[in-house]
């Protein structure tokens, strides 16, 4: 319940306050969001399996976001930024899909 309320509150805060992201960080925002989604789905699946722990979630979320963003940053510096971003999105996308499928099975038994 608390996470859901927090999520909604975050969306409202984001829309109302409209914090401006520094120009330097803007290219990494979408990648960070994909990483965050991956962490969210993984956490929800772990929750359904009864193995969820706050600490692991916080650590995995922060490290996911930072690693994904820094991979793309390093790629940008050496000129393969868009390719590495594609790689990150593909890998995280596969994970999101697999987790979503597992969640669906656990929730609806289908």
């Amino acid at each position, binding site marked *: 319940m608390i996470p859901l309320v927090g999520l909604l509150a975050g969306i409202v805060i984001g829309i109302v306050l409209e914090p401006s992201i520094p120009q330097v960080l803007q290219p990494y925002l979408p990648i960070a*969001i994909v990483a965050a989604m991956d962490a969210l789905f993984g956490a929800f699946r772990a929750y359904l399996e009864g193995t969820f*722990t706050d600490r692991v979630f916080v650590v*995995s979320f922060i490290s996911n976001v930072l690693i994904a963003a820094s991979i793309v940053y390093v790629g940008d510096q050496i000129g393969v930024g868009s390719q590495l971003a594609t790689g990150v999105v593909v890998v995280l996308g596969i994970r999101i899909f697999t987790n979503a499928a597992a969640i669906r099975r656990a929730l609806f038994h289908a």
Partner: protein
Amino acid sequence: MDLLNQIIRQPVDPDYALAATAGSEPSRGRWKLGVLAMIIGALFAVAALQTTRAAPALQSERSELITRIQAAEREQDQLRSRVTSLTEEIATLRAAALGDDGAARSVESQIGLLDPVVGNAAVTGAGVLIVVDDSPSAAADARDRVLDIDLQVVVNGLWEAGAEAIAINGHRLSNLTAIRSAGDAITVDYRSLTRPYRVEAIGDVRTLQSRFVETSAGAWWNDLAQNRRMRYEISDVKQLDLAADPGIVLRHAGRAAS
């Protein structure tokens, strides 16, 4: 494929299972989760806002540029028509200022004599037409193309042969007209030409062509036509209409000594 297989087989952080088997303490700090969820929500909102914000900005930038181009074109048209009307005004004012005595009439006749020569008045008459063009093999060899200097040679040869008025592709030449290359095109008065190049010259039909052929320009172009296979046709024309050079402006005006 091993990598993809592994991603599919183990989509959840293995730490969750490890922590569960280690029997970690039941979740206490629920607020951490709430804060993180808030951050994620804010991230979503900001990214979505930025994407939707950027799209109309790009669109408006584009349409802004288009309107600016159109405004500049309209302004150019207005300025051009203003030049025409001002030129006419200058002519009327000059006629009025000169009055109607003998000295004025001699000045006017001098103006009438000089205007066609400097290119300030449209002229018609008999003359020659020289058509030049790149050789068919110009695509393969850049040396087979007509260059700005080739056109300059033609024009100078025509002046030398006694031409009184010259135009290239309809652009009237004056003493101040530049014939230059700009990129791939040759420009006359900074307006680019399209091939083939038609050089029209008004002059004494009986001598103009034969005298042109005898100048160094004639030799130059004979050489180009024979060795580079460029198109080079010269013919007499009974009637040529050459417009005035719009680039000529009044640079100096003074009160006539009376």
